[in-house]
């Protein structure tokens, strides 16, 4: 059952991928949906058995690498953490699969798309159920590769290709850090299996390493390197630039990448490695600051974006920041809880926006929408549910998890905790604002689209709205149901050894914060929604005037703090320049000229010359023989 839940998506992907053309579109869709769906069905009893029942399991499949002292196996590790992740991933992914059947109905490459989706799910499942760092890295890279394929799915679009390459390259930067982290762990404890590593970590708590001549705390260094990996995958500040561009992929892809898989991998990694991070307090502070900054920074950008999907994308970025600073203050369980609830409502928002885009004939710009709520009532309702969950209005899912994170940050009573709390509150305000802005601009007000488009606006088919409903149920109830076991009184029974916390329990502290801390998120949320209502419903002229009177601020935000331009200037162009020099001068000028090209040219010239020797004249041949023997005899007589 355990292995089946993980490998059914792979089976579906293989069938659809290799035989897609033979078995046809419909069969490919059925087989992939069935694979993931069965996985989702199986994940529920697994969750209850592992997380609730406490039957942790490690399923060893095969030995992978056995070389010297280095030993690693293919094994599936099921503890509470992975059970939660498996359930979330499979369930959300299944709904997205079903949705994709409807969304991609006009595409020509349905089997390929479905195969990628399933493969993506499988890679993510491998990641979360890994029993050692190497297997985790396998899943990690698998996710990276398939994300490249999916973002660049419409490979005829140059922007899609560029976005795919960008996502891949930025991820590689993070992966490099992750890989160094794995090397570091192996160097330190001579093992990569989680249990062994975690057992060994306390005894290495004080070890130091010399890195580039600077002596430092070994575990901090490792934790930071791992966090670099997590930053890349989870699009944290400085390595976030790929995420908005990834919107070039089809909407189900965005939903899958942003909600259930890929971006959550970084949070998962930090939670998984919590026994190690706990021994590296300095690293945790970095995690907190980066997370909090990302939450704030992404929210500011989200306020001015016009592309409906990009707004949600920055919202994801921001929410991931919340999760990270939750980890940073030790509230791993809150982070995972938010991860889980976020998966539901973010998938809902993405698929809802996909439904809107579908209705608006592939229009993504919110400035060209408006006033369509009457035509797409179901989608409209779903978007409201998703938004309310996102902005943390009780009793929707986000409320439980997000408030807990903010309380935990405050309750940490550290300076970075305070920083995270302030940033979190500010981000919550802006979240409410841009979410409201999105809703009002899209659904209300005067229609700004062309008439033909407006005439064509229609509700999506059932196969797209049903998954929305499924996700909406999750977005409404996931928080309420999970509250007690994830972060409430049942949390110790629930998590057991999956997450380690040293010292004070930050969740416990979070339950004892002052009342104003508890209420402040609620207040700023309502404030934000009200502001959005005022600016976009009652006085829609104000935003334009604001933008005109503070052009610098507006441009700064609209251009995403100029990160892309900065990176372009700092890395991309110098890299291209270096590459060009190495290519033209180094490779073609030196290596090719004297290496392969030179050798092959001289070989061909030699072949022609040797061919010319073959004149066909008998006396030439005889003469060659005589010369040969004369040379040999001379050599022997003179030299031998």
């Amino acid at each position, binding site marked *: 059952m355990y292995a089946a839940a993980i490998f059914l998506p792979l089976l579906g992907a293989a069938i659809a991928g290799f035989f897609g053309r033979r078995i046809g579109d419909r069969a490919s869709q059925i087989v992939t949906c069935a694979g993931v769906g069965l996985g989702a069905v199986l994940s529920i009893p697994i969750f209850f058995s592992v997380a609730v029942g406490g039957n942790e399991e490690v399923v060893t499949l095969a030995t992978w690498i056995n070389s010297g002292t280095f030993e690693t196996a293919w094994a599936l590790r099921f503890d509470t953490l992975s059970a939660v992740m498996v359930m979330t991933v499979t369930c959300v992914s299944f709904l997205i699969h079903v949705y994709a059947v409807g969304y991609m109905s006009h595409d020509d490459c349905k089997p390929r798309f479905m195969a990628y989706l399933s493969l993506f799910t499988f890679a993510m499942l491998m990641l979360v159920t890994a029993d050692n760092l190497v297997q985790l890295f396998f899943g990690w890279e698998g996710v990276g590769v398939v994300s490249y394929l999916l973002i660049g799915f419409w490979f005829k679009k140059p922007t899609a290709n560029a976005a795919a390459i960008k996502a891949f390259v930025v991820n590689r930067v993070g992966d490099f850090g992750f890989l160094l982290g794995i090397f570091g762990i192996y160097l330190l404890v001579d093992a990569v299996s989680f249990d062994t590593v975690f057992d060994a970590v306390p005894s290495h708590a004080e070890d130091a390493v010399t890195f580039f001549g600077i002596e430092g705390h070994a575990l901090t260094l490792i934790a930071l390197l791992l966090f670099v990996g997590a930053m890349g995958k989870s699009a944290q500040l400085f390595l976030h630039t790929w995420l908005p561009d990834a919107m070039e992929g089809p909407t189900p892809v965005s939903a899958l990448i942003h909600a259930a898989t890929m971006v959550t991998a970084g949070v998962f990694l930090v939670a998984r490695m919590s026994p190690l991070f706990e021994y590296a307090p300095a690293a945790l502070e970095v995690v907190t600051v980066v997370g909090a900054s990302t939450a704030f920074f992404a929210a500011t950008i989200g306020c001015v974006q016009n592309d409906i999907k990009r707004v949600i994308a920055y919202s994801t970025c921001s929410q991931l920041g919340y999760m990270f600073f939750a980890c940073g203050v030790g509230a791993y369980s809150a982070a995972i809880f938010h991860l889980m609830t976020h998966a539901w409502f973010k998938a809902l928002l993405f698929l809802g926006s996909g439904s809107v885009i579908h209705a608006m004939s592939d229009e993504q710009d919110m400035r060209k929408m408006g006033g369509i709520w009457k035509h797409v009532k179901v989608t409209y309702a779903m978007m409201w549910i998703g938004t309310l969950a996102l902005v943390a209005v009780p009793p929707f899912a986000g409320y439980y998890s997000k408030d807990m994170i903010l309380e935990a940050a405050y309750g940490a009573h550290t300076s970075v905790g305070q920083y995270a709390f302030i940033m979190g509150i500010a981000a919550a305000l802006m979240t409410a604002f841009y979410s409201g802005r999105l809703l009002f601009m899209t659904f209300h007000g005067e229609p700004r689209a062309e008439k033909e488009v407006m005439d064509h606006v229609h509700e999506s088919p059932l196969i797209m709205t049903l998954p929305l409903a499924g996700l909406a149920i999750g977005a409404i109830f996931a928080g309420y149901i999970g509250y007690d076991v994830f972060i409430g009184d049942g949390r110790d029974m629930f998590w057991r050894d999956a997450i380690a916390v040293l010292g004070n329990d930050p969740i416990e502290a979070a339950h004892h914060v002052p009342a104003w801390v508890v209420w402040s998120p609620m207040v700023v949320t309502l404030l934000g929604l009200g502001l959005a209502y005022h600016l976009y419903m009652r006085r829609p002229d104000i935003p334009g005037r604001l933008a005109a009177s503070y052009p610098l601020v507006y441009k700064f935000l609209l251009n995403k703090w100029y990160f892309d331009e900065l990176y372009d200037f700092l890395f991309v162009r110098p890299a291209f320049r270096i590459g060009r020099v190495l290519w033209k001068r180094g490779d073609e000028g030196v290596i090719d000229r004297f290496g392969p090209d030179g050798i*092959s040219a001289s070989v061909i010239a030699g072949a022609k010359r040797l061919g010319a020797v*073959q004149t066909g004249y*008998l006396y030439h*041949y005889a003469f060659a023989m005589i010369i*040969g023997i004369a040379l040999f005899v001379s050599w022997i007589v003179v030299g031998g």
Partner: protein
Amino acid sequence: MTQMPNLVPAYAEIFLALSGLLLLMVGVFRKTDPVRGVARLAILAFSVAGVLVLTTNAVAVTTFSGMFAVNAFTSFAKLLVLLGGGFAVFLMLPWAKNEGIARFELPVVMVFAVLGMMMMISANDLISLYVGLELQSLSLYVLAAFHRGNLRATEAGVKYFILGALASGLLLYGSSLIYGFAGTTSFVGLASALSSAQENVGVIVGMVFVISGLAFKISAVPFHMWTPDVYEGSPTPVTAFFSVAPKIAALCLFLRILVGPFDDLMFQWRQVLIVICVASMLWGAVAAIAQSNIKRLMAYSSIGHVGYALIGLVAATPEGARGMIYYMLIYLFMNVGTFAVILSMRVKDRYVEGVNDLSGLSKTNPAIALALTVLMFSMAGIPPLAGFFGKYFVFVAAINAGLIPLAVIGVLSSVIGAYYYLRLIKIMYFDEAGEGLDKPDLSTGVVMGVCALAVVVFILVPEPMLAGADAAAAALFQG
């Protein structure tokens, strides 16, 4: 009076000689389709001779006043030669039918050629060496010119004849020098004379001449010039025969004579042979690139392969000898298979030989394309095919014998050589399809399939062949 010589070790040769005579009679008196009948009988004769070799050559003995020697090595070599001859006759059958060749002498002469090769292999005296060599050569001259109506074939025959006569002259001259200085022509006598006496420049020069004469027979550089022209001009089944049987025989003779009577002159002959070996490998690899006729290409390919086989000879260790025999065994299958492919290159009932006639073969005739691909990969020495192991064993032998530069050059030239083998594959798979070839004859297809299969499955069951080669190499170094 004199005793009757012991005939048992020579049963196979005697049988083959008598069969040759008998086949001649059969051919003359058989009215209907003499070619087919004679060819089939020739194959039968080869098979029986093979059985006789296996049954009568088990122990190492000499006979005919020490002129004729048999041991495990000679029997292994003879079996290879018989196999090559059998394949060639088998390939000749459909060719003769298609070309309307109604002359039964072809298989008869082939039988005599094989007989000559077996005599060469068993030679234990410079005279018997020469007689066997001459029987072989004369038969081959006739075979080369067999298409007498064809200008190219006639030219090939004449070139081969005159240059062969020159090579025989060199060989004889060397032999007479050796006889003059050592006073004996017997291998055993030479070995003992050379081991007891100090270095003698006359014998060494004579040996160099003998080496040159033999190098001509295996078409090693710089005595290879005849090869491309003769390969191109001769009838294709004859070329197939040329490219395997005489080479195996001459190489085995080479090995026997160098590690036998001339063992004490190893320092001298090694220098000469290293030059020959390196030059052959490089020349074969480079010159083939510019070829557009597939038979010419195979000629250069065979020059290169002889170079690789010579590495084993230069190593002059049991390991090297084993590597060389082993190489020749694999080479036999690769080459016969390739020539079977060449013999199936027929467009509209006409044989074609251009490399470009293979264009797009993967589409028009995937089975042949696959077989040729396997064979070419094997020739290029790409694992896990047999050709890789052939090269591997000789290279390892060279390294163990301290001849690392030789192994390095071997690897480099096989990289260069891979170019034209892979080019054929590229032409078959990536070029625009031409007219497509006719359906190959059954027996050609069978030979092709068997050889390609042998090359592929070799890695699975190498033990029987290795065991044979081991025993053969061991026998060589006992005496």
